């Protein structure tokens, strides 16, 4: 496969970036998208140019490191995959592919395709936990049975990998899907109920402070989410929030 790549190059957070065009050849359909970028970088290094910086680590779709806005979509054209699991067989010989970083005020560009997603960490630090010490003296794990449906729903919310695709997909750069997934995981478990009132308020406050936009229910986040996190979580967080605020 022969491809034309248009890639966002930006030297540093403060530098001005621009799109740059590269030609690449010999791409195989079995390669992952990031392996295609490896080939490009190897070429660039051999030519004495500076390779393209991008975030990646596990390359099996679970660590949430990789990002990339590919042809205008977070994680590219395939559904329910991260960029590292996107394979080149989804593209055709002669295609032009546009590759940009995730765009959001709260995700400033660090270099080339790498953005700073530490806002997500701070939202979780504001309350995304259950206050229990690791004493080893907690009650037996089976002391509190949990209805399977709730346990499963909590799990599905917890499958969020914190990649930020929801923010990149949203025209308002809202982090509601991410935050609501974290709120939901705990809200659905009896262990999480104790601190529910404070948790949702603290996390939402931090989310707003970080400069994420509001949710206007377009649902783009759910479609682009590599883990299929459901919009229901946003509804649940809104309920939790309203009930928390009314409690005072």
């Amino acid at each position, binding site marked *: 496969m022969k491809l034309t790549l248009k890639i966002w190059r930006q*030297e*540093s957070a403060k530098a001005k970036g621009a799109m740059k065009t590269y030609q690449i050849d010999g791409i*195989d359909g*079995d*390669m992952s998208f990031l*392996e295609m970028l490896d080939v490009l970088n190897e070429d660039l*290094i051999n030519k*004495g140019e500076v*390779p393209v*910086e991008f*975030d*990646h*680590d*596990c*390359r*099996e779709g*679970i*660590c*949430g*490191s990789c990002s990339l806005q590919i042809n205008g979509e977070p994680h590219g054209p*395939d559904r*329910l*995959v991260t960029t590292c*699991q996107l*394979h080149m*067989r989804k593209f055709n010989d002669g295609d032009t592919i546009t590759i940009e970083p995730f765009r959001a005020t709260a995700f400033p560009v*660090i*270099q080339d395709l*790498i953005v*700073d997603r*530490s806002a997500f*960490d701070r939202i*979780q*630090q*504001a*309350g*995304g*936990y259950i206050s*229990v010490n*690791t004493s*080893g003296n*907690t*009650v*037996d*794990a*089976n002391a*509190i*049975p*949990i*209805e*399977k449906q709730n*346990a*499963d729903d909590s*799990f599905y919310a*917890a*499958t969020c*990998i914190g990649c930020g695709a929801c923010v990149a997909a949203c025209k308002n750069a809202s982090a509601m899907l991410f935050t609501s997934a974290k709120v939901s*995981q705990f809200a659905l*478990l009896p*262990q999480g109920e104790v601190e529910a009132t404070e948790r949702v308020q603290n996390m939402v406050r931090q989310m707003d402070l970080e400069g994420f936009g509001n949710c206007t229910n377009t649902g783009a986040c759910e479609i682009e989410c590599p883990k299929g996190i459901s919009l229901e979580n946003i509804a649940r967080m809104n309920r939790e929030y309203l009930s928390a605020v009314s409690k005072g």
Partner: protein
Amino acid sequence: MSELKSNIPDGPLAQKWTKHKNDINLVNPANKRNIDVIVVGTGLAGGSAAATLAELGYNVKTFCYQDSPRRAHSIAAQGGINAAKNYQGDGDSNYRLFYDTIKGGDYRSREANVYRLAEVSSNIIDQCVAQGVPFAREYGGLLDNRSFGGVLVSRTFYAKGQTGQQLLLGAYSAMNRQINRGKIQPFNRHEMLDLVLVDGKARGIIARDLVTGAIERHSAHAVVLASGGYGNVFFLSTNAMGSNVMAAWRAHRRGAYFANPCYTQIHPTCIPVSGDHQSKLTLMSESLRNDGRIWVPAKKEDAEAIRAGKLKPTEIKEEDRDYYLERRYPAFGNLVPRDVASRAAKERCDAGFGVNKTGEAVYLDFKSAIIRYGKEEALINGNQNPTDQEVYDYGKKVVENKYGNLFQMYEKIVDEDPYKTPMMIYPAVHYTMGGLWVDYNLQTTIPGCYAAGEANFSDHGANRLGASALMQGLADGYFVLPYTIGDYLSKDIRTGKIPTDSPEFDQAEKDVRDRMTKLMSGKGTHSVDYYHKKLGKIMWNKCGMSRNAKELQEAMDEIAELRKDFWENVKVPGTMDSKNAELEKAGRVADFLELGELFAKDALTRNESCGGHFREEYQTPEGEALRDDENFSFVSAWEYNENPREAKLHKEELVFENIEVKTRSYK
């Protein structure tokens, strides 16, 4: 042999840990506020240790190269975590978990450590549930279990195929609580480049801010290394791209002994290599062996036809299939330990029965599981005479519920539907049992430098059982290290803050800068990946699933040669003062090029086969591993030498008082 003190407490095995906890010194809460601890790595071991140490009152600094602690590679663990809860009432106990782990490790681990691991395993599950980890549950609301290789009970707790992520998010949430309180200061996108010793004690690290390139000094009263394993020495492995040995290797260079480097786990069920472009390998959880049956064609001509694309696996009749694990190991069948399953796959492929284009793959087939579950589900749903299609539909649903995300992952990578056609799998490097030598307290041979999780060597012997890595990481971090480190720190309550302007810090920083300058000043013939791939090929071909003296010697020579070439000719573009992925990789590969040679040396020195270390010269007539307990029942702990083949061997004799050492049999 005398200088390695394992510090195993006296007394009967089952009481050692309790007694030890009662005997060691404590630090009072007011004094803990004056003590700093550095934790390098934020996976299950590092994250849980950091959170617990901060809860106890110490000032903790964490370091990880990822942009968030939540992305450490523990996250990729799929199948589950073991605990001797005996919720299934199938006869499990602490002793049985201990026994299975020692036997699974082929009698090359330390009894006291393994027993402690089994003992605290149940606490881990209680703790994680209290933290909100959403484990799989049954309809009655209680926790579900499944079975893993090398055991005869169901003791594995799981969260679908992503137990690692859920447990790591638990540890990360515990960290977040402490970050919010100001007790943990996280340094993300930072890499440890050196360990700083003052008066022979670990007193800090030199780290690089991976965004700005700034070299930083951080001091502490103790340093915990929880930086994972070194599987990436093989280039292709199931490790994350960034997983590396740098933190451990820097400590090794500064005096920490490195134990059993040749003990590597080659995991039997990974997606086979598809081409030269491949950057990493993807695991398919061992849990799949609960329901999947492994086979190759019984006839060579069928295997050849499949490789040529003329025959489909579904067209091969039942009697023409060789379910070789069930045939060779009737008692454990498809659930033999990983080393045994991997070697058996290699044996069949080497004999010409492999199935994909390269001939290096075997089938993992879910058809009989789908039918079995389908029939059961049909009955539950009141359908006494289901059609074949109905049975398939019911069964597929059950399998999807259990392994859905793994099947999806397979389909995305291979472009084939594993519900319809059997998966193709082949062994791949997955985990390293070797690591920094530690005593019972998890302290390395450098006072004040501790190692936890995969970074240490202590619990898995020569082969790790499935679902035990998560258990060990969390056991070390939540329940062992926070206690044992107190004993050491109790002597530091009057020390005060460690200054970073000492000559020791000056020297360490200079060493780091010199090394980086040297890396950047290579002649620029080849990229870092060029060297890494070459090293990987040597390792896989000569230090992989089976090894022999001649090839190990060749590997040592070739690696030494490659290392020399690397330092002269590597090309690292960009600058030191900015984000520079190539420079990061170069530093890591430089360490792998030393470790690789020591690895081969260790394998060459160990004239026996045990667990994941299989020497062709030492096998039974049936091709099983042949241990030599008389001469090799010891831990190899290597003292650093810049010429790895000259490294000095220290031996820790392994003593088995509570378990009868015998030939491992899964027949």
